[in-house]
């Protein structure tokens, strides 16, 4: 009965580097979401997977951001050529949409990314 886990919990990188953030959703949850949360803000939607496919990637800020979920479970958020403005907490959430009239999302603790 583990919840959503995210690794690493903290990531410090230099401007221009590439980073990967990992999310392990709750077993059996078909929907997986990535959000970005800046200091003093609410979570900002990035991308949502239903199974292996990205159902909505309208929140990705630019083409430096990419996410995959090749087997419909674990997901990786990839950021190329990181910029200082990418510094934020990246949250992952999973949800079981089947049979529900509303979307209850379960969040992981987040990865705090700092770009120097």
């Amino acid at each position, binding site marked *: 009965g583990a919840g959503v886990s995210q690794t690493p919990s903290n990531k410090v990188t230099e401007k221009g580097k590439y980073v990967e953030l990992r999310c392990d959703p709750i077993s059996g949850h078909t929907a997986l979401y990535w959000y970005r949360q800046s200091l*003093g803000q*609410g979570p900002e939607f990035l991308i949502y997977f239903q199974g292996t496919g990205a159902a909505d990637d309208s929140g990705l800020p630019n083409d430096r951001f990419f996410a995959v979920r090749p087997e419909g479970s674990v997901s990786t958020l990839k950021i190329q050529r990181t910029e200082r403005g990418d510094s934020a907490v990246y949250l992952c959430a999973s949800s079981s949409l089947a049979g529900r009239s509303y*979307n209850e999302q379960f*969040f992981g603790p987040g990865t705090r990314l700092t770009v120097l």
Partner: protein
Amino acid sequence: TQLLEQSPQFLSIQEGENLTVYCNSSSVFSSLQWYRQEPGEGPVLLVTVVTGGEVKKLKRLTFQFGDARKDSSLHITAAQPGDTGLYLCAGAKLNRDDKIIFGKGTRLHILP
């Protein structure tokens, strides 16, 4: 433009006082959720309201969904230091229950 406006942004009150925070929008939502987030953790769902005018109670917390399903309020009775945290509202737009949009949150601090 922020789809969901939360007010106040910050609130600091004494233990034992009552308070209300608000979540407002010009859009209609099929459902609206309230989450609480503590430092270093992800948001945790408190409640979901789906029917206009609906009122739900969770111990000392009372949640209300507006009749037109455009706004919601959270009322806390006799606030306690353990209520301290960031309260976020999030709405699912009509015909898009698979995606929710968050407000910026109300940061609540209860002084002992």
